[in-house]
């Protein structure tokens, strides 16, 4: 017997309970198979209609709000690329003071949510995000990470993984794709003493949904780092968005974990990891990689997994098993 759907702001036991109401309309012009919109749909379901969305410049903004159209059924604002954290700070502060002064209803929680890409978060918007987190604004900041600047046509960002081809880390005589290791945004966010931070992944909808609810209920800033496959920029068949997302978890490339008031927890243990080769072989952006590069990427993943195992104090993500 299926469980009943829940209202907004409530955790679920299985995906049958995810509410039916939609706050983002179809008809937007996101690419086929865009991971972002799976994540956005569910976050808005979790948040409900009493939500204000701040959306720095990026794919999501451009594909949802070309005048005279908008896909957003909740109040939505876009200001610029690098200031999502600051705009959200202003919205949150205004809600607070206007509720105090009785201009907005005092007894209704109004959620403030940022949807920002990796460019708008890890690079150009980094300072503004840091300010928002450090000041303790009650905002849910969702980093929709597709690991490059996709809106302007696949340029590398501080979140582009080792080995990945982008138009600014091309494969040439001297360069063979990105050669550096991406930033660890969860650790950066946690360093701001915020109550809640978590990684999410659309291939794991129940885990994703419950983390969204926890983030919305947090008493201060919450940071959700969402893994969001991009068929266009990563060069894979749009039908495989969820499969790629799932492989990221099964290879340990993307660990689903959370930081909840000082406690780290891995939510989706992977006792036997698939080799990273499984993850990269279905993406065109890694096609050029040499055996040596693949080995290096495997080492980077191993190290990342080890860091998280240390954080939780036990081996929750196991070794690679062919």
């Amino acid at each position: 017997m299926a469980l009943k759907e829940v209202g907004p702001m409530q955790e679920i036991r299985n995906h049958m309970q995810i509410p039916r109401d939609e706050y983002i309309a179809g008809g937007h012009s996101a690419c086929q198979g865009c991971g972002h919109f799976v994540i956005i749909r569910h976050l808005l379901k979790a948040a409900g209609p009493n939500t204000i969305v701040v959306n720095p410049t990026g794919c999501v903004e451009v594909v949802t709000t070309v005048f005279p159209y908008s896909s957003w059924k909740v109040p939505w604002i876009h200001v610029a690329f690098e200031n999502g954290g600051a705009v959200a700070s202003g919205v949150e502060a205004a809600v607070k003071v206007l509720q105090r002064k009785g201009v907005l209803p005092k007894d209704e929680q109004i959620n403030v949510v940022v949807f920002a890409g990796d460019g708008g978060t890890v690079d150009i918007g980094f300072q503004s995000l840091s300010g928002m987190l450090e000041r303790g604004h009650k905002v849910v900041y969702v980093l929709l990470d597709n690991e490059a600047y996709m809106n302007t046509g696949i340029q590398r960002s501080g979140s582009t993984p080792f080995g990945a081809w982008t138009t600014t880390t091309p494969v040439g005589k001297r360069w063979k794709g990105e050669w550096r290791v991406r930033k660890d945004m969860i650790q950066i966010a946690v360093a701001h003493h915020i109550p809640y931070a978590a990684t999410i992944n659309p291939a794991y909808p129940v885990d994703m949904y419950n983390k969204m609810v926890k983030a919305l209920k947090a008493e201060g800033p919450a940071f959700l780092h969402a893994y969001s496959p991009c068929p266009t920029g990563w060069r894979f068949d749009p039908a495989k968005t969820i499969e790629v997302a799932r492989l990221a978890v099964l290879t340990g490339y993307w660990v689903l974990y959370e930081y909840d008031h000082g406690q780290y927890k891995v939510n989706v243990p992977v006792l036997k990891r698939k080799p990273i080769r499984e993850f990269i072989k279905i993406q065109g952006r890694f096609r050029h990689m040499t055996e040596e590069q693949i080995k290096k990427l495997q080492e980077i993943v191993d190290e990342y997994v080890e860091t998280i195992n240390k954080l939780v104090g036990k081996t929750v993500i196991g070794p690679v098993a062919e």
Partner: protein
Amino acid sequence: MMEERLPGWKELPEGAVVRDAGNTETIDVSGWRVFKPVIIDEKCTRCRLCWIYCPDGAIIEVIDEKAKMGKRYEVDYMHCKGCGICYAECPVNAIEWVPEER
């Protein structure tokens, strides 16, 4: 034929706001598709994963007392772009991937 006249500056809302937000619903993106998903209702177990994973909100959960388990799933072909996620993720192969014919 006369070209459609767009509203002038006097008729437009201040600051380029969209007041009837959600109105991309009126946009037909069916032309994006090369293939389309077709749900085979008899095979469908109502697991809901196609509805969960659709980036375009183009799988509709229809409450229908007469249907199996009181509901069924339909494709909103106006908003389906034919990405194929539903087809790829359906655990029981209840979605067929059919070439679009116009």
